[in-house]
């Protein structure tokens, strides 16, 4: 009989060696580019590169538009997730597919489709322009739209999954206790999925922050109006690698901070 060494405390599972090897490669694949970035960063010039008007404008614009986009994604996405999770209707699968489309669509393609819908000669955009003189491309509102377009599916997926996983009988119990459907939503359903809801919002925000293709195609590129941090990085690449790297570092730092502070509540698991 072979004696197996037991580790005191947490029970550990013995993984086959191949799993450890591939996991190590995966980690390296993700970490090495970050290390590369750090090594090439012009640490000495960093303060000066990051305090240029361009850099500050880009950061400010990025933060504002990404938060607005996350808000839009939440206000529109939660009801959509609710309908997908709770209602049964024909064409539901197709509807879900369409909702998730921005996830797989190349962002530039997303930008093009936004143009065909909301551009000056677009399906809806033409009325906005002819009747109200509103042009969404080249405006900050256009940036928010582009970012919300790509970010919303993340929120919808997360929230829909969470809504499906909770016991709907809690909502029934609430109804017998005099709660109207609206009260049920705000005092029972949403609080019960709060962890996933927050994770979904943060995910959407992070996606909005990093959005490039749809923004540059639909909203354009102008400092202070539409030049978000990713666009500023792209512009900087035309001039100076150092500036591009410095700006990339800012994006990285902001994203990393938020993701780490979520502490792994990402995967929709509720404590």
């Amino acid at each position: 009989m072979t004696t197996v060494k037991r580790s005191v405390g947490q029970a550990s599972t013995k993984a086959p060696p191949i799993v450890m090897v591939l996991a190590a490669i995966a980690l390296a694949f993700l970490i090495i580019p970050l290390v590369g970035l750090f090594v090439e960063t012009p640490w000495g010039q960093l303060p000066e590169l990051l305090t240029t008007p361009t850099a500050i404008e880009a950061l400010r614009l990025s933060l504002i538009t990404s938060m607005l986009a996350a808000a839009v994604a939440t206000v529109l996405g939660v009801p959509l997730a609710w309908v997908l999770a709770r209602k049964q209707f024909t064409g539901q699968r197709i509807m879900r597919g369409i909702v998730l489309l921005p996830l797989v669509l190349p962002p530039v393609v997303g930008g093009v489709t936004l143009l065909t819908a909301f551009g000056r000669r677009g399906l809806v955009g033409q009325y906005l322009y002819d009747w109200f003189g509103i042009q969404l491309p080249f405006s900050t509102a256009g940036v928010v739209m582009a970012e919300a377009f790509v970010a919303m599916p993340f929120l919808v997926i997360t929230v829909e999954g969470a809504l499906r996983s909770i016991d709907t009988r809690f909502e029934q119990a609430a109804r017998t206790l005099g709660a109207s459907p609206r009260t049920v939503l705000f005092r029972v359903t949403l609080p019960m999925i709060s962890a996933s809801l927050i994770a979904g919002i943060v995910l959407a925000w992070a996606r909005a922050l990093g959005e490039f293709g749809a923004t540059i195609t639909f909203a354009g590129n102008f400092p202070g109006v539409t030049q978000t941090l990713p666009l500023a990085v792209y512009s900087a690449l035309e001039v100076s690698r150092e500036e591009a790297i410095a700006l990339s570092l800012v994006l990285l730092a902001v994203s990393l901070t938020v993701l780490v502070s979520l502490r792994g509540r990402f995967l929709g698991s509720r404590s």
Partner: protein
Amino acid sequence: MRLLVVSLIAASLPFAGCANDDASTITVSAASSLTDAFTEIGAAFEEQNSGTSIRFNFAGSSRLAEQINSGAPVDVFASASTAAMQRAVDADSVESPRAFATNSLAIAVPLQNPADISDLTDLADPAVTLVVCDSPVPCGAAAWELFAKNNLAIKPASLEPDVRAVLTKVVVDEADAGIVYRTDLNAVVGEVKGIQIRDEVNVINEYPITVTTDAKPDARSFVEFVTGNDGQRILQSWGFGRP
């Protein structure tokens, strides 16, 4: 299991893409304004030199210079401005360049000309949605020079990464006007309306071409072709000026 890992790694190697794996392919980075002219030149070159193929990389010249300086595996660099070329020269990534064409600016407006543009000065109207190239890009630098030369205070709606992007915004009628090269108007005949800018108030760009310092030996022959009769004839047919 270990065998699987090793064979997976081995299988991916061919896709790593060695820089000079194919001796008969010449990689050319050219300004996006040269897209149509150079594509034709490339075809003509390949016809005359069977066995050699040309691979093009069109983008804003400033970006191309940065790529070359970062070690991109390019053999020939054709820039839309001497300023962009100078960046590559300063970094010792290219050999001495020589001019092969000139270009000047023009205004592109959508076919319906919704903002009723007829002249350069119309662009100063703040209600006009104007797009130009980003400042480091030759087309953009030239545009700002143009505005300064004509004492125009202009605020564009967007700074695009290259001149073809500017053109696209005009073609889809998203912008009222765009500053492009005169040659670009020839590339989109029927899709936009062109408004010429008189030579006296215009800005002329000189286009230099050269081989990179680690270029393949054949690369030089492509440069010769461009500066030779065949190349020049094609360039001028597209509206470029003589160097």
